[in-house]
């Protein structure tokens, strides 16, 4: 009986990652539109777009290989598994021990690896420009992410997310400068990795500025649906990650009853909503950067992460 409940909770976690992700993206778009005094698309528009894409035929470039067609599935699966490893509403789920923060970062790296390969496989200049820029961004964003992982793991004494959330929730750690630096760095990395302002514009198809969109330009139909869904899940993942490390209140402890789980779900929805509003507000007030200024932005995230880790190494009390 216990095992069934545990499995059911794990399945719920995976389902939320998959099904709530488009809603989150739709909500961000809606809030952004309202902030710009537009009506904006309906909340469920993202689901409709996905359904429409799934029903359409897929067009692939004539010189592409099987890798081009397999990559969307790999990208989708790796992102989904990574998103499901981040505690959303409850900690210590059945399979939460199967990977830690480093594994999550590496799974996103795998998704990126295949995304870049598929872009090069399309055999177009756009694929190349996207992959090349993505490689440059990743070469700074991945180390920055790892430095944040180090900071958080050193504070909590573990790199396992469930244990980190429990530790942060217990309030044993008070305020720490390193964690503050880590939070800022994580937000910057999250903006980079999810292709939001000021790094990338999720709504543009202007070749001078595109990064992520350039890589997926040749995708269509069901392949594009998978990639769009993976992109939505990546946004959900980063929001859940920030929530579970820096705002773990309300999250259900292991073996919690239905009431605690309901509280966990409600607080999770609240955190996502807050995150979406904050993201929309941020994106409305800021302009996109030139491509060659982005390394400064992501490099700053790397420096903050390194500084946070260094402080932890040097002193136990800062």
């Amino acid at each position: 009986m216990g095992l069934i409940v545990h499995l059911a909770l794990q399945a719920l976690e995976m389902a939320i990652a998959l099904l709530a992700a488009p809603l989150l993206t739709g909500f961000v778009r809606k809030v952004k539109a309202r902030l710009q005094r537009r009506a904006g698309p309906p909340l469920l528009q993202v689901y409709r777009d996905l359904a429409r894409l799934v029903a359409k035929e897929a067009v692939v470039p004539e010189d592409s290989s099987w890798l081009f067609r397999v990559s969307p599935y790999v990208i989708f699966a790796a992102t989904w598994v990574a998103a499901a490893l981040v505690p959303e509403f409850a900690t210590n789920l059945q399979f939460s021990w199967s990977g830690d923060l480093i594994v999550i970062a590496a799974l996103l790296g795998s998704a990126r690896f295949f995304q870049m390969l598929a872009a090069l496989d399309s055999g177009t200049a756009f694929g190349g420009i996207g992959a090349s820029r993505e490689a440059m961004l990743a070469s700074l964003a991945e180390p920055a992410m790892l430095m944040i992982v180090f900071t958080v793991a050193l504070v909590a004494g573990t790199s396992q997310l469930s244990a980190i959330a429990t530790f942060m929730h217990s309030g044993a750690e008070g305020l720490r400068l390193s964690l503050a630096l880590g939070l800022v760095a994580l937000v910057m990395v999250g903006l980079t990795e999810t292709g939001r302002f000021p790094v990338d514009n999720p709504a543009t198809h202007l070749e001078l500025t595109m990064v992520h969109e350039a890589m997926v330009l040749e995708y269509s139909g069901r392949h594009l649906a998978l990639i769009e869904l993976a992109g939505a899940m990546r946004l959900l993942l980063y929001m859940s990650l920030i929530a579970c490390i820096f705002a773990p209140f309300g999250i259900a402890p292991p073996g919690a009853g239905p009431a605690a789980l309901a509280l966990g779900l409600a607080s999770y929805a609240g955190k996502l909503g807050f995150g979406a509003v904050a993201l929309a507000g941020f994106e409305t007030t800021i302009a996109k950067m030139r491509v060659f200024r982005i390394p400064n932005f992501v490099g700053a995230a790397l420096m903050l992460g390194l500084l946070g880790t260094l402080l932890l190494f040097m002193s136990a009390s800062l």
Partner: protein
Amino acid sequence: MTAALLVCALAWLALGAAGAILSRRDAGRMVVYGGSLAVSLVALAIALGALGGRAPGVTLPLGLPGIGMRFAVDPLSAAFLVLVDLGGAAASLYALGYGRHEAEPWRVLPFYPVFLAAMNLVVIAADAYGFLLFWELMSLASWALVMADHKRAETRQAGFVYLLMASAGTLMLLLAFGLLAGPRGAYAFAAIIASHRPQWTADVAMLLALLGAGSKAGLMPLHVWLPRAHPAAPSHVSALMSGVMTKVAVYAFIRIAFDLAGPAAWWWGLVVLAAGAVSAVLGVLQALLEDDVKTMLAYSTIENIGLIFAGLGLALAFRADGLALAASLALTAALFHAFNHMLFKSTLFFGAGAIQHGAGTRRLSELGGLIHRMRVSAVPMLVAAMAIAALPPLNGFASEWLLLQAVLLSPSLPQFGLKLAVPAAGALLALAAAFASACLVRLYGMAYLGRPRSAAAATAHEADGISRAAMIGLASLCVIFGLMPALALGHLAPVVRELAGVSLPARPGWSGLTLLPVPARQSSYDPLLIALFIAVTSGLAALGLHRFGSRALRRAVPWGCGFLTAGDAALPAGTQYSPAGFSQPIRRVFATLLFRARDEVVMPPPGATAPARFAARITDPVWDGGALALAALINRAADRANRLQFLTIRRYLAMVFVTLLILLATVALWA
């Protein structure tokens, strides 16, 4: 057991002789490579049997009179024997197919088995004399193999630089052993361990070992020979040199620094860690800027050697501070990565050989679309590329994960210098991992994907069956050890116990397959479960989409940014990104300072129809600023000294007299 390995070595030497006799016949190839494969498999079986145990040593009445030559197998040598012989067996199998294309087999066949024998003998040698003798034999045999294609000027230069660096490295090791042996001349390893020596001799010996073994392994800044010599050799030899011989150098360093030199000072770890982390980043950054597939792989070897040495440095630091469990974690990570690197780097070099032969070029800027023409060998190449880019759930990620967990344990180190250096090294390792991913995307994407960039690539053909079998075999091992790293870690435990005092705790049954660092609550990683999840979720997605969505698929000419083609003709390959274009952002951001990267664009005069020309130049500070500057300095000094050759007898006598006076004065002052 040791005797059986010596018999194997003799068999290889005999094969070398047979290769010299039969080299001009077709049978010679079958005899040498088939024989090497068989002997490698036998030696592999013996080594697997010896894993974790300690075989009685053998003393042969060879070498220095009265001393003899000792051989022994302990857990460390057994583990490296498995690595050497597995790599040797795979390379021999590959060569059975690939060796057919050799232009001058008589320059390869006699030396190939000798090279294998020498690597085995270095690992089982149990005294300094035998170790250095076989080390030198290994260097010379591999030098002869590098020179196989001696008609190209680059190869001759590579051979010269290699010979120079190898001699210098051996000299360093000779001095290290001299210091360790002490004035009483205890050359046997057992006697070296038993003897007591002042700490400064151990310190200097460790630094000399780092220079000597590090130059052979390719640590920066002693790496200049490696990206020249490794690619110049035939591909199966490149695989052996990059995958296996660099690991013999790692073995030499571990043997001296962890075993022979005795207790470590805390700063040993700092020096080794710094050298490793810097090599990792600079190696892979240079790989990212390289156009030649094999040179690029050689630079990537420097990166991986850097990772291994970073792990060894951490292990030394932990051990010196009495943190035995943490030391065992770092050492396990380093040894596991050494084994993994042998697997994927050999596969990649095999693939590079297949490309070179199949497409007739190794330049990325002339390749493309090989996945359509080399359908089978493209798959193991993809697996190896993913493994070396440290993607879960493959083996490269498992060892990097362990290494990062070891970094996480280092705040417990008491020394201030280490506290400062370790996070910086961690950042460098992370940077190296990100570059490695970009580098392998560039390699695979430019060579195998997209459209062919030259006629040669458009008509490339697939490698032969035996070569493909060797690639598939090694790539499957990458998958197996990635999914079940505990298989390898269990066998590394006796080695680690011997060198670090304790080993990672072993757990029985299925739970033992999950990777755990030392304080088990710190973290866990279960590759099998992650792989299962990925398989199930992607399978579900495919099933659901094909069940409920559209299954139609259409191929069409992609949008070429307004490039007009006649009718339905395909876009020309030049509309794709080039390898230099792919790395341009990274080159601009990272290499402008480090390698003085400059982009030069030559525009035609207005109105002319000539195309604009683009060239990217980078300057390697170690080669141009270090090695070439040093050579110029030596040449100048030699020119000065040359004047001494043309003096009169009177002057010579005067010089002898003055020298004598100075010497006498020195002695008088000294006493």
